[in-house]
């Protein structure tokens, strides 16, 4: 579904990503972890087509990403953005409806099928009780769920999440993670998430990709990736601080 080969990204002549090779098959659930500045978000931006690598190729569903225009990418891959601020009062359903932008009629806008998809996404993520509320007045946890519903409405086979739990309390963290897991197991959506919290990652993701200084240093099941030596080497902390509730 997603394939990166020899991907190198330069930021001011410094390699932010170095010779990345990564294959994610349809229906997989993968978390990218690593310390600050390891290149996690850069990797997501490359996969989403916002950043063109200096060398290497990126493929999405068998097509080279640089051959697809933005609209074609948006129909294949949905991204849950980091919590944005809204300039105008915007109701919850209006935010979710933005997920239909890649599908709606360019002039006439949403058609009945689009409205049905919005309603279905609202049901699927369980934000029906928030309808009619101004999205700016919601709690961070609620807003994250609304953005997730928007990405679900986008109806793409791949869902990408950038630090979806970063501002959330524990309950909402678990809620979002369970939802993402459910989208993966029940709907077969391929998931690629950048996570800060390696405990959450280990608990909810069967495959972890550990990045350090722009390179993939480990890729596999949590137990294989998060060895005490790696935690000490990569994160620079005593492995005893990291409790992995497997």
């Amino acid at each position, binding site marked *: 579904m997603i394939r990166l080969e020899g991907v190198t990204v330069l930021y001011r002549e410094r390699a932010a990503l170095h010779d990345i090779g990564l294959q994610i098959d349809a229906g997989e659930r993968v978390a990218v972890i690593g310390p600050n500045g390891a290149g996690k978000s850069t990797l997501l931006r490359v996969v*989403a087509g*916002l950043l063109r690598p200096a060398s290497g190729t990126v493929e999405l569903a068998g097509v080279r990403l640089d051959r697809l*225009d*933005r*609209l074609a*990418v*948006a*129909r294949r891959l*949905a*991204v849950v*953005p980091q919590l*944005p*601020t*809204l*300039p*105008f*009062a*915007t*109701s919850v*359903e*209006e*935010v979710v*409806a*933005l*997920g239909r*932008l*890649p599908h*709606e009629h*360019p*002039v006439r*806008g*949403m058609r009945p099928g689009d*409205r049905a998809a*919005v*309603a279905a996404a*609202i*049901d699927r993520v*369980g934000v*029906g*009780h928030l*309808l*009619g509320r101004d999205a*700016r*007045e919601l709690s961070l946890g609620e807003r994250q769920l609304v953005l997730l519903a928007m990405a679900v409405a*986008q109806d793409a086979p791949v869902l990408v999440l950038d630090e979806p739990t970063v501002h959330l309390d524990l309950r909402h963290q*678990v*809620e979002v993670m*369970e*939802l993402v*897991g*459910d989208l993966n*197991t*029940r709907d077969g959506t391929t998931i690629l998430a950048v996570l800060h919290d390696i405990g959450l990652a280990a608990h909810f993701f069967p495959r972890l990709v550990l990045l350090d200084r722009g390179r993939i240093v480990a890729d596999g099941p949590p137990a294989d990736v998060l060895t005490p030596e790696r935690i000490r080497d990569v994160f620079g902390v005593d492995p005893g601080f990291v409790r992995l509730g497997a």
Partner: protein
Amino acid sequence: MSPGSSVLAARAGPTGRLGLARRPVALAIVGLLLLAVALVAGIGGGTVAIAPGDTLAILGRRLLGLDIAPTWAAAAETIVMDLRLPRVLTAMVVGGGLAVAGAAFQGLLRNPLADPYVLGTASGAAFGAAIAVLIPVRALILEFGLLHGFAFLGALSAVLVVYKLSRVGASSPMTSLLLTGYAVSSLLAAGLAMAMYLSGAGLRQIFAYLLGGFDASSWGRLAVAAPLIVLASLGILLRARSLNGMLLGEEAAAHLGVDVRRERAILLSLASLATAAAVAVSGLIGFVGLVAPHVVRLVVGPNARLVLPLAALLGASLMVGADLAARLLGDIPVGVITAVIGAPFFLALLRRTRSGYEL
């Protein structure tokens, strides 16, 4: 069993009705009626009042070729066709264009306090007009006049300079655009002050332009400005999807399928073109471009597909109304009327905007 099902089941409450389509057809009809009323009132009102029935009959006879026997003085027909109609239509086109441009700038810059003049069009136009007054040659460019032509070029050049100067690397971040717009405007304001200081007898002419108004409207000027404003506004209307994508920011817009760099450049160009043409014919009239989109958003929400056309209708009606009020109050500048109505609204808006406002 997936670990999520318990949480999901617990939260699966009733889903209310989706409040997405907020009666767009009904609102469009209301907007068109408002515009029609503004048209008839705007033509009828003034030092020589013409009854609405006569106004409609004259318009029907002259524009639609209806066979209506005149029951009015010949002067009334001249006033309607040669003076009032071009004036009211100019006000409509300018008001509608400024409202669409304002909505576009607010959406693009993600800033509710943006107006069509935010990137320097107003100060550029004013400076251009002042320069034209200082030039001793009186040339006519079409029927536009040197002053209007220079105002148009001044407005466009100002935006172009702002856009170029705000570039950071390959892109031009919105914050940088806003701040550059402010800086360039300040510089042009200084130039304008200098030009006014040097203008001597031309001062009154510059001043009249700065205040804005429609008393110098003519069919000729309308014929030059209207196509520019209308086409640019239609171009913006057709790009409502891109503006909607920008609601969540440029990165999110890109994820939703918007080619951000291209769409932003196109939308900024169209909105600047509409503003420049509007400013060239009418001078600086504030607040309509700021207020009309917000009033519409209060009713229909932020969806640009609804906001843009409805704001155009409202902006056009407001401008005709403001021009009529200005005429009835003894030919005071329209900008004064729009400011008196718009400024309190602007202040109320500032107080309402809490979490959403950021540079």
